[in-house]
């Protein structure tokens, strides 16, 4: 085994260990202090004590949803960065998550859809429309879709969609009641059934994206070279966009909009295993949940006894990343 390959395998093992650690922390830490031994016992044997109930009914679903959303966001960010060839592309910054939110609000308000299975489709539709709009806006005009234009278009899109959402919710109290538990971007209090309803979409999105890993590698070399290598660039981009949209839609439908996980994770993964997407995508899929669960655990601790939604914590952790990225010469040609 060559040096590079063994290093990759090594980092992958480390990442998996981290994931295990994050899962354990997520199960053990919370506003109610439960001894690790009791957690373990509850997991293995169940039981009817209060502690066992807390672990099995609250923390296990929460952790599972966290893993699912983390995978979706990490991979979606990686794919978006791949197809736009832009280091700051991310579902949250680009406003795709907010588009999915708007889709869900519309589903609740105008179409009377109240089940997750129903509104996940609206989330997909909203995410897709937002993604297309952003890309069209950012890539028109001179200079193509540069990082600045993408980020600005995303910021504008976020503001616009957020105000539409606020507008709808202020005029419809019933929708607000249903929506307010969901829009903060939190994995607390989610039902285990959410996992059952969303995993097929997650798997579909992941398969779609993994199938195009080699294509993303070619695209990283530039459009012309990718074309020269026999790749259908337009098809690649379209497939990638569909995959990223589905993954973002899954994440938003399950947990509400969560920004910056999709930004930081691909960069960390790239630093560890290099730019090849066949390693990068799995690595992002492992690191995504690690970051999300750790942020969530931190959010349970900082303002005890209340909790901070995970989206707030990921944003606080992710922004330094953005700053470092932007300060590097590569992003902005100074």
């Amino acid at each position, binding site marked *: 085994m060559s040096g590079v390959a063994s290093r990759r395998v090594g980092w992958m093992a480390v990442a998996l260990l981290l994931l295990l650690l994050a899962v354990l922390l997520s199960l053990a830490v919370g506003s109610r202090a439960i001894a690790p031994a009791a957690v373990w016992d509850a997991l293995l044997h169940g039981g009817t004590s209060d502690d066992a109930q807390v672990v099995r009914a609250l923390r296990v679903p929460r952790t599972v949803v966290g893993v699912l959303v983390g995978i979706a966001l990490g991979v979606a960010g990686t794919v978006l960065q791949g197809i736009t060839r832009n280091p700051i592309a991310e579902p949250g910054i680009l406003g795709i998550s907010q588009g999915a939110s708007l889709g869900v609000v519309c589903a609740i308000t105008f179409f009377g859809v109240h089940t997750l299975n129903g509104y996940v489709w609206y989330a997909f539709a909203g995410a897709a429309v937002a993604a297309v709009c952003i890309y069209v806006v950012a890539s028109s005009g001179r*200079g193509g879709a540069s*990082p*600045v234009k993408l980020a600005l278009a995303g*910021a504008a899109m976020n503001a*616009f969609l957020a*105000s539409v959402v606020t507008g709808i919710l202020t005029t419809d109290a019933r929708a607000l009641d249903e929506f307010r538990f969901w829009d903060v971007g939190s994995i607390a209090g989610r039902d285990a059934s959410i996992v059952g309803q969303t995993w097929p979409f997650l798997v579909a999105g992941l398969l779609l994206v993994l199938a195009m890993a080699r294509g993303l590698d070619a695209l990283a070399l530039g459009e012309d070279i990718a074309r020269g290598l026999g790749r259908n660039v337009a098809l690649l981009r379209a497939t990638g966009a569909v995959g990223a949209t589905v993954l973002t839609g899954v994440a938003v439908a399950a947990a509400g909009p969560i920004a910056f996980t999709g930004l930081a994770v691909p960069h960390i993964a790239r630093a560890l295993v290099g730019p090849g997407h066949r390693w990068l995508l799995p690595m992002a899929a492992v690191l995504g949940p690690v970051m999300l669960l750790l942020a969530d655990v931190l959010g349970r601790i900082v303002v005890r006894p209340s909790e*901070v939604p995970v989206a707030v914590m990921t944003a*606080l952790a992710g922004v330094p990343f953005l*700053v470092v990225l932007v300060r590097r010469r590569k992003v*902005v040609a100074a």
Partner: protein
Amino acid sequence: MTQATFRPPGHAVLRTGKSSLLLHRRSLLVALVLTALLAATVVASLCFGESFVAPGEVVRVLLGLPSPDELVVGTLRLPRLVTGLLVGAAFGVSGALIQTVARNPLASPDVIGVTHGAGAATVAAMTFGVTSYAVLPYVSVVGGLAAALLVYLLAWRRGLHAARFVLIGIGISVALGSLTRLFVTKGDYLVAQQAKVWLTGSLNGRGYDQAAPLATVLLLLVPFLLWAGRAQRGAAFDDDTATALGTRLDRDRLGLGALGVVLASVATAAAGPVDFVALLAPQIARRLTRTPHIPLLCSALMGALIVTVADLLARRLFSPTELPVGVFTALVGAPYLMWLIVSSRSGRSGGTA
């Protein structure tokens, strides 16, 4: 040379005795039209509400004459309107100054983190028990300045590149927004309620309590604004030209930028982050006047006009429900920002990596 017969095109000279003033004719016209529109909006805004008040009565109240509608117009609607006017004017001028300094129409106080900094500081102060509207504006100003300084320092890397500035500003805005929510979560229920109303950028329930500190600050800033009107023209040139013309560029830019940040922060303290007014007003004003620099007076008028019209629509469109005015300004402002991006001529504003 005997007499100064040279006159720049499109300008008129106003002479009173020895002193003379060069006036841009079109700017003057635009300012007059905007003032007329603003007056009409003011009357309309006082007319419409839960009950309709005849314009004649509104004018009587405004002139201080006795009127049966004194209570509705003078006590209930006027304070809110005054706050809206002041907030709009402050945001308009603030945007004009910061856009001049950054020489980039995209750099408005809400994009580069000033309003979010002011917001985070205010909510933090509320969380720690400061709820008086006499103190909060100053907290806001400190927050806004700190955020602007932070963005400036982080974006500084062998010179200030506009693209880097904007990107870091967006990032810091998001972080500060999250921090604000953290404080809201931490605070008790009543604080959360107050902060929530304030954060939506609404004029609902705002009155002289909020308008008074804002008006004080604006009055104190008038001399600086007069200076800014002059300094702004020099600062709008690129570095080489301005230096060659003898402008003390660093000093002027620092002063103008600080002034813009203070204005945006005070306005935010009064009404919460009303998005995109600071971005829209100067750009529209400049397109109307067709001046090479961004006109300050017209920006102020335009800002006030935008906020009052948006508030009128937000109040009446879905009555009895009132929307926050920030929702309306964002609905108009965000597409405009996108249009700016689409039509931007500068291909060098950021390279693809």
